[in-house]
């Protein structure tokens, strides 16, 4: 790293006792035993239950709302009109009225008693047919990207080109714990919220602004969160109405979305469809790309898909058009825009490789140096590793499995990138004279292992076992920490915890130096002791050392960013899928999924690998099953439940192989985020594997039997 001999630097490889090893998550027992309390589990004395009346129509104007009957019903304590007459509703499931009642049943009855009149307006809920959408005046073009001269490059007689169409539909987050809050007023201008949120330190400001109360009067608590995946950064409209109902009723109110609302309104990943032309020299060197892309993220423009993805093809033109629809608002979904970009790029490159009679893995290898930030070398190492783990040379074959029978096997590959620089973080370390150590951060653990990472860093620095550190997160009263998005948490909390721990240790060393007769800078903390460097005979136990602090506890504050670079940004990764396709039924079965991933210095190898396993599984899920199906007749989501919005089950995922790139060349980059990148490649890799198996491209994800059979019937490039 840039600065040398900085006191905060990560320990050298030989001096690491915990960092980089496999350590079980410290909140594992609380979760496995069911004792971890999530927002949905909070029950306060006298608490009321909220329920919401939601629009049954995709696009309407509200003309009348009558809550009088609901207000008189038994058990009903407060009723709030969230959107009243004159308001235009842009998606089915949008909030209209929320009620608070003594029981969920009473609240449900009250919602049913509310009468609303609507004026119907035209709606659009499907965007796959671009030309039709254009004519409906529902499009908004984004700025065009033009690098080099694609037309000229395609015109070169030495260039072979391929034109294809690909797509990936809207899907939803389907967090198992729905969005929502429990809100109680603890004073005339003060509230406490229990919120299912990815931003414990950010939510108080949102409530404060909306309720016109001081932000310091809002405490937000989220000890455990049942999934977020990018969809839980906001207080949301229902958060505000829940707080208002609690004020009206003078009692705490709990409102978390029912499952149908969770799937209809609380998270969708924008779609992407593309007509693309990609060209390479006969040796496979990519030279030209031209794409017309469109997609929807609901009523407002969503992100432009970064295509061509990873590979900065020298001559490239990209047009993107947003289709504005009434499907509900988009939210960030694990690596926003990247899974779509991979599914629209790696597929086209794969088809071009087939046309050139090239092995697609070799084609990516050949073009890896087109990756930005000089990441070509990393990709080549990762492609090599992925080839080994997937037994590529044994199972890959030219397009179309020629084996007899109706089960066809194929392999596909994709690669991806992500940033992941550590966010703003503040850690307070307290060491008491009895030796106990606490780390406090206003952060949250989405299940990625944030608590465990903090404990490992503090314990490593102080020479203690992981169990010796108490980690307190999930409360906005702890020092500010950034929201968990963009894979920024591990870089943030590990750096702030390191800095705070190093400073805290220095104070302990200073206290014991005179007694040991060794200068403080010649002392180290290791194995539960403070000892002289290279002389274990001069040592004192951690507990005895802390007693030297007298009656004073040590309290230090570490920040990120701060002195010494402890992390960086920018990772690569490769995914391989190995599938079998039944050409009679159209069923795609996963044999094996491979993830090879770098993320700089790994703090906890066990939870890091879990992120990759989970990403592969989520990738199988959106690759094979997931789609927000909208009904053109009613404008509503057809599958707002978990039997028809399918997510992968334990028998659907095949064998999973994960390899983390570590050691020289990786560790010295410091800590980089990991939660998102490995989920990017699986969709594209599965698409390519299916094409490799059956000899034709199934253009759109997810690869359900109907789509596979349709592609087989249509035929195409063999």
């Amino acid at each position, binding site marked *: 790293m840039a600065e040398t001999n900085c006191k905060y630097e990560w320990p050298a490889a030989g001096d690491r006792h915990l960092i980089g090893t496999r350590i079980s998550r410290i909140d594992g027992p609380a979760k496995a035993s069911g004792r971890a309390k999530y927002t*949905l589990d909070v029950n306060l004395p006298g608490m009321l239950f909220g329920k919401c009346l939601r629009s049954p129509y995709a696009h309407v104007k509200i003309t009348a709302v009558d809550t009088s009957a609901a207000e008189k019903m038994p058990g009903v304590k407060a009723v709030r009109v969230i959107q009243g007459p004159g308001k235009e509703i842009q998606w089915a499931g949008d909030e209209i009225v929320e009620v608070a009642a003594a029981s969920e049943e009473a609240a449900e009855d009250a919602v049913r008693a509310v009468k609303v009149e609507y004026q119907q307006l035209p709606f659009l809920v499907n965007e796959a047919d671009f030309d039709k959408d254009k004519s409906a005046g529902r499009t908004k073009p984004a700025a065009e990207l033009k690098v080099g001269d694609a037309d000229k490059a395609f015109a070169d007689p030495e260039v072979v080109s391929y034109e294809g169409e690909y797509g990936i539909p809207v899907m939803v987050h389907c*967090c198992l714990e729905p969005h929502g809050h429990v809100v109680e007023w603890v004073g005339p201008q003060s509230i406490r919220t229990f919120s299912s949120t990815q931003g414990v330190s950010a939510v108080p400001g949102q409530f404060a602004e909306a309720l016109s109360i001081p932000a310091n009067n809002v405490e937000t608590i989220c000890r455990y969160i049942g999934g977020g995946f990018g969809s839980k950064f906001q207080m949301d409209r229902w958060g505000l109405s829940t707080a208002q109902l609690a004020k009206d009723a003078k009692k705490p109110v709990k409102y978390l979305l029912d499952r149908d609302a969770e799937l209809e309104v609380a998270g969708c990943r924008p779609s992407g469809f593309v007509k693309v032309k990609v060209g390479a020299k006969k040796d496979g060197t990519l030279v030209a790309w031209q794409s017309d892309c469109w997609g929807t993220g609901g009523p407002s423009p969503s992100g432009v898909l970064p295509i061509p993805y990873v590979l900065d093809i020298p001559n490239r033109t990209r047009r993107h058009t947003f289709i504005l629809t009434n499907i509900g608002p988009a939210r960030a979904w694990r690596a926003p825009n990247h899974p779509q970009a991979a599914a629209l790029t790696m597929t086209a490159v794969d088809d071009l490789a087939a046309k050139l009679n090239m092995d697609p893995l070799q084609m990516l290898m050949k073009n890896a140096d087109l990756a930005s930030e000089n990441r070509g070398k990393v990709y080549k190492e990762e492609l090599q590793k992925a080839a080994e783990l997937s037994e590529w040379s044994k199972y890959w074959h030219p397009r179309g499995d020629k084996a007899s029978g109706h089960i066809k096997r194929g392999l596909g590959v994709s690669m991806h990138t992500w940033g992941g620089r550590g966010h703003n973080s503040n850690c307070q370390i307290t060491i008491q004279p009895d030796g106990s150590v606490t780390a406090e951060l206003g952060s949250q653990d989405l299940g990625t292992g944030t608590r465990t990472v903090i404990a490992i860093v503090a314990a490593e620095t102080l020479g203690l076992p992981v169990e010796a550190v108490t980690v307190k997160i999930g409360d906005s009263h702890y020092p500010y920490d950034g929201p968990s998005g963009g894979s920024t948490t591990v870089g943030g909390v590990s750096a702030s915890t390191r800095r705070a721990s190093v400073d805290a240790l220095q104070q302990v060393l200073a206290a014991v130096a005179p007694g040991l007769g060794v200068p403080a800078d010649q002392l180290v903390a290791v194995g539960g002791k403070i000892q002289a460097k290279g002389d274990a005979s001069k040592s004192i136990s951690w507990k005895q050392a802390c007693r030297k602090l007298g009656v004073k506890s040590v309290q230090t504050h570490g920040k990120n960013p701060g002195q010494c670079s402890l992390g960086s940004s920018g990772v690569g990764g490769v995914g391989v899928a190995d599938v079998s396709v039944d050409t009679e039924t159209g069923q795609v079965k996963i044999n094996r999924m491979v993830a090879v991933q770098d993320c700089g210095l790994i703090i906890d190898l066990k939870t890091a690998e879990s992120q990759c396993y989970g990403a592969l599984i989520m990738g199988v899920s959106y690759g094979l099953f997931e789609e927000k199906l909208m009904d053109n007749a009613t404008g509503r989501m057809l599958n707002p439940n978990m039997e028809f919005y399918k997510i992968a089950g334990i028998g659907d995922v095949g064998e999973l192989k994960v390899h983390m790139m570590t050691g020289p060349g990786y560790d010295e980059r410091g800590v980089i985020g990991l939660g998102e990148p490995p989920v990017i490649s699986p969709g594209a890799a599965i698409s390519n594997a299916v094409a490799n198996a059956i000899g034709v491209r199934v253009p759109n994800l997810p690869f359900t039997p109907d789509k596979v059979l349709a592609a087989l019937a249509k035929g195409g490039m063999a």
Partner: protein
Amino acid sequence: MKKEKLRSRKKEEGNEGFNRRDFLKGAGVAVSGGILAGETQAVAQAAEETSGVQGPGETPVTLRVNGETKHLNIEPRVTLLDALRDRLDTTGAKRVCDRATCGACTMLVDDRPVYGCTVLAIEAQGHEVTTIEHFSQGGKLHPMMQAFVDHDAQQCGFCTPGFVMACIAFLKTHHNPTLEDVEKGLGGNLCRCGTYEGIRHAVLQAAKTMTAEKEGGLANG
């Protein structure tokens, strides 16, 4: 919404149970009683014993939960899951799909796994309800819970209690399961974070630990 009666009994005794996808394939949304008739017999019988019109208002209900007797006044439409979570602050079982798809609310009724979201509390009267809280009393983790910790079979942890309960029930009828058995037998529970890799290992480990403990116990006894 009216809750359908007891369509949630999900694991057939003595075989692999049914996989969620097979289940949907065979039954569609409107689950036919036939598939599950054998399993529901016991509870259906109990429901008959307490037959007579109840509700629509609140009615006294007595539940046996983790060995304790609990008295409630609730409407007949209240599910066992909601009675436990909303009235008894027993929140280990989670409400996720609320219609017998995801298994997050898996609990035991008379030692057999059910989806608590699709059993009415009044139907559970006269039966022993066991929730995940029962298996870590005194702070000691059940071997299945320990296996989940050891194999990192959890991320956000929201599906975990249901999965742990399904696994405990699964091992009651599968003492030495294969990987294929595990994948079939646990097809009735869903995870969003993607923890199946750890769960597969955890179940196989717990099967070994529990068999060893049982044999050790016999040898010592």
